[in-house]
């Protein structure tokens, strides 16, 4: 008999539950600090000059932790760790599961917004998370044909996606764009015009201009060639995107955050209208 069934049997035998036989869980009692003695005004030192002549034990340093008692703290091993850009991983296994359970629609392009809004893959920009890293766990059972855009991917993942005829792109989003994409409705309701996406920083540029990594800034012709190379390496047919233009022809401009929406536009969901900038200066600023 499970614990639930045991609980039910117990409930059937005891009197009816009402407001008089309720109780909360036993809590931890915290000792209150009293306003005298060591926690009082004089902190245990007394009031007169004579009382202040008790100098304390050996090593006493006036109340703070003395150096011989201080715990060993290693300070500089994680220096700069807070500033490192994070790309939390998504396994191909979990992606397949999400598609199979209808959390994610594989007939439309998948990007950071789709993954975040599915509720299965949370993203937290305040924790320095710049997007998702698609890893190859479960690639043997990955059967879905998708057009997916992630922020980091390795060779085996790319091969697993393209083996099924899918398309993978690796694109960079700065934190402001990640915040906008991860909670799109909240951002669009805030009344701020869509900003333009920033270019990747120097130390990450190698990822996004490399056709072998399917970077979004790489030459498309070179990317197509790399697809053939990878197909030959792993022994599958190179993917073709002609027969499903709806799914595969949607590409994002390097300055674009949302599919179908350009930077500079101001969206009103309640009134179902888009306000576009008219000034030439603004248009140029948002488009370059």
């Amino acid at each position: 008999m499970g614990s639930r069934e045991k609980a039910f049997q117990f409930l059937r035998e005891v009197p009816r539950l009402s407001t008089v036989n309720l109780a909360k869980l036993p809590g931890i009692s915290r000792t209150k600090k009293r306003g005298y003695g060591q926690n009082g005004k004089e902190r245990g030192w007394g009031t007169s000059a004579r009382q202040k002549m008790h100098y304390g034990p050996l090593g006493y340093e006036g109340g703070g932790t003395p150096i011989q008692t201080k715990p060993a703290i290693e300070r500089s091993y994680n220096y700069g760790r807070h500033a490192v850009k994070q790309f939390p991983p998504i396994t191909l296994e979990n992606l397949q599961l999400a598609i199979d359970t209808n959390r994610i629609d594989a007939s439309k392009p998948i990007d950071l917004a789709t993954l975040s809004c599915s509720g299965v893959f949370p993203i937290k920009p305040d924790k320095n998370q710049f997007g998702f890293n698609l890893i190859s766990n479960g690639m043997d059972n990955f059967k879905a044909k998708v057009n997916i855009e992630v922020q980091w991917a390795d060779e085996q993942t790319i091969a697993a996606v393209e083996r099924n005829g899918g398309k993978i792109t690796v694109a960079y989003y700065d934190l402001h764009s990640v915040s906008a994409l991860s909670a799109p409705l909240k951002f669009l309701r805030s009344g701020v015009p869509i900003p333009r996406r920033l270019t990747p920083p120097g130390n990450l540029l190698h990822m996004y201009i490399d056709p072998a990594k399917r970077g979004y800034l790489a030459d498309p012709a070179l990317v197509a060639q790399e697809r053939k190379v990878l197909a030959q390496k792993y022994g599958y047919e190179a993917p073709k995107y002609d027969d499903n233009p709806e799914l595969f022809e949607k590409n994002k401009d390097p300055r674009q955050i949302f599919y179908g929406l350009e930077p500079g536009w101001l969206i009103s969901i309640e009134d179902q209208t888009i306000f576009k900038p008219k000034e030439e200066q603004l248009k140029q600023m948002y488009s370059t």
Partner: protein
Amino acid sequence: LIHFYKRSKVMLAKARLAEVLRRRSSEFIKLGRSASTLPANDDQFDFLSSFDIKAHQARYGNPQEVWVESLETVQPNFTGIRQLHQDVFAVYPRIDLIHKNVVWQTTYSKVNYAHAKTVREMIHYFGGGAKPWPQKRMGRARHGSIRSPQWKDGGKAHGPRGPKSFYHMIPYHTRVFGLTHTLTVKFIQDDIHVVKDLEIPTDDPDFIHEIISSRGWGKSTLVVDKDDIFPRNITAATDQIKHVNLMPLYGLNVLSMLKHHTLILTESAVEELTKKILFALNRTDSYARTGLSHCGPKPVDLKIEKHRPVV
């Protein structure tokens, strides 16, 4: 300076508290009505109406079964069997969650109006700001005013200050669990009866008394239907009976369920309740919803558009 002092701190505190309570209560009334009573017309954010119970399968446990009764006759009259979802009516019962909900319900609207006047307030209302007698040569103790704490009718130094509100919110999911756990306990202790509908043949209160005694229902009964308009006969019959109460589904709460011995649910109420609770347990915008419990509803007044609060 005298004019400024006339508006005392007590009046300010009372006005501030009243303003806060009025604003909070009006906002909550708005939310309660928009959630269930007002119809949603072409609302693209109305996920509750498009939530499909059959698509959601519970992982653990087995569905429970309950008799469906009819109120046409005094004698017990079973017309069928109905399945109840285990995530709503058969969860592992946690009494401490029920306790939390009951404590919250009883204390969140409580206001402690105790207020002890300080020395300055006593002087303001009753006088006595002047030095009662000169400092020296009187042979008496030295005093600055006749309203200091050691005097009779003096001010209180560290007394209760102004109205104090005990308003607080427990998290959204704690409140959802309160409902599910209380429903479970009531169901397991055989205090829930599901009824086809609330049509009774007469509007005589004695009919209700006879039904309760013949079917072994507890003294106090809570009858819950989906909408807030009940059939004429049962309304008339239970109107004078203080321990039989009619309640729409949106009024269902833990304290009422515990105070009444028996809970009668109509079939439509059970269906709607299951749908709402399963939606609440499986919603994907929990982050936004729990944020509301901490800070309260925040409508943003922008000229371009109106922000629709998350419910």
